[in-house]
């Protein structure tokens, strides 16, 4: 047998990525939902270049707004709510999301934690471990509301729960807001890992998701959440500097 033909097994441990996506009516009114859909498709293509993540990654999409809170099938095969929220990343083919309704952000985060816990238990019972700490990414343009559309402060309870998960090294939580999101909510939910963009550039938001995955992978899996968040901030600054430099260089070349 040649060295090239020596057997190599596929990744067994999983990397769980959970997107918690705002699909409330404000996303429709501003046209942001279309930008999000386009950005998701582009991001899906970009992820195909990451061999390691393609083999180990599983992704879930929890939406809040249209149809209240639900897990949609990231492979796009099942319409509506899916009983199997996580699919292998290599099957990721994001369905087109629609926006409507109020903003049950709190319930969505709680539901995301629930489906994540179920998936972890399933993997454990199958003898499959986690390659990296599970990551939850909240992406929103609004503030959490109650069923009547009134702003609610119940996110503070969820924030306390998230800190416990982080301290136990069970979870990394990122709060990524675009124009319309509330800074107090984002910083409260993710004090060390929040971003608020001035526009609705969801491509940039998803670049932040990619950066956060890379930061978590580059750090040791036993690192405290704060260390990974610091690396995420550092990596993001570096990426932005590089992007600006490339833009300047490109502009100079054009000139």
């Amino acid at each position: 047998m040649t060295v090239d033909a020596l057997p190599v097994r596929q990744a067994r441990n999983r990397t769980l990525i959970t997107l918690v996506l705002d699909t409330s009516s404000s996303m429709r009114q501003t046209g942001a939902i279309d930008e999000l859909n386009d950005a998701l498709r582009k991001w899906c293509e970009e992820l195909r270049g990451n061999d390691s993540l393609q083999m180990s990654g599983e992704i879930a999409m929890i939406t809040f707004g249209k149809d209240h809170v639900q897990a949609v099938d990231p492979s796009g095969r099942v319409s509506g709510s899916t009983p199997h929220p996580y699919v292998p990343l290599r099957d990721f083919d994001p369905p087109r999301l629609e926006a409507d309704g109020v903003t049950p952000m709190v319930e969505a985060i709680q539901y995301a934690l629930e489906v994540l816990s179920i998936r972890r238990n399933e993997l454990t019972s199958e003898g499959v471990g986690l390659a990296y700490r599970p990551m939850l990414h909240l992406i929103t343009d609004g503030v959490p509301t109650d069923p009547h559309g009134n702003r609610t402060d119940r996110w503070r309870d969820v924030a306390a729960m998230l800190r416990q998960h982080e301290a136990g090294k069970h979870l990394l939580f990122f709060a990524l807001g675009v124009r319309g999101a509330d800074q107090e909510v984002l910083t409260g939910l993710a004090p060390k890992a929040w971003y608020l963009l001035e526009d609705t550039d969801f491509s940039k938001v998803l670049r932040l998701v990619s950066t956060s995955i890379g930061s978590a992978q580059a750090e040791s899996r036993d690192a405290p959440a704060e260390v990974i968040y610091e690396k995420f901030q550092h990596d993001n600054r570096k990426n932005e500097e590089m992007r600006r430099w490339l833009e300047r260089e490109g502009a100079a070349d054009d000139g």
Partner: protein
Amino acid sequence: MADSRMERGWRVVSASVAGPNHASVGVENQDSMRTGVVGDALHLLAVADGAGSQPRAAHGSRLSMEAARDAANRVFAAAPRTLGEWRRATELFAGECLAQFDEHVERALTPLRARPTATGANTAARAEFATTLLAVVADPPYFAYVCVGDGFLVAERAPGGSHLVLSPPSGRQTASETVFMTSPGRDADLRCGVLVDPAVVGLALCTDGLIDGMLDVAAGPDGVRLLTAPADFDAYFAAFRAPGVDGTELSRKLQSREFAASSGDDKTMVLAVRR
């Protein structure tokens, strides 16, 4: 230095490559390895995996290799002759690896602590050198092993094929439970022993970046999932036993796209095969 007795009939090849997670962001390979003659013509085979979260982990993994070498030179200055002597020497070797590592880290820390930083006193700490260690001192058919952390050891028997003789901890949710040479719980985690088997014709020492790519999971009694060395692990021993196969091929293999897809971690293997 003279050859070891092992070298007369065995071939040792080794490779250590940065995982894609580190390579993509320009972080150095934090694994280390060392092979060579130690003590009274015995042979050291060793690998270490620096903890990615620690700023001096790569340095730590190199220090653990130096510690294993120094410990082996000291303990095996006279080769053990009986199983009893091997057992006693192995116990001493394990303790000496830890002691030497502590000394090396302390020596590395002293100048660091003396160097003030912009924000005041330097607070460089021992934990920053976190690393695992898997070391074997070989004088076939005797193989003394010492392990702290999640490295793993596969032995090939003829007849019998490949066996996982030292397994990484299984059942963990993530590597957050990994014990390092700098961990308070390292003494409890330390595993050491002597393998005595004239039928052993191959040894593979690996860091945890190779767990997914090279090991299988099987259901054990009472449903517990156990890691095993698959039958086709033998192919690795056979490939490098074959005349004409260059040792650098192992490095090329570990850098292959297949291995990159199996894990983003750094990957290190020391492979010894009886010719």
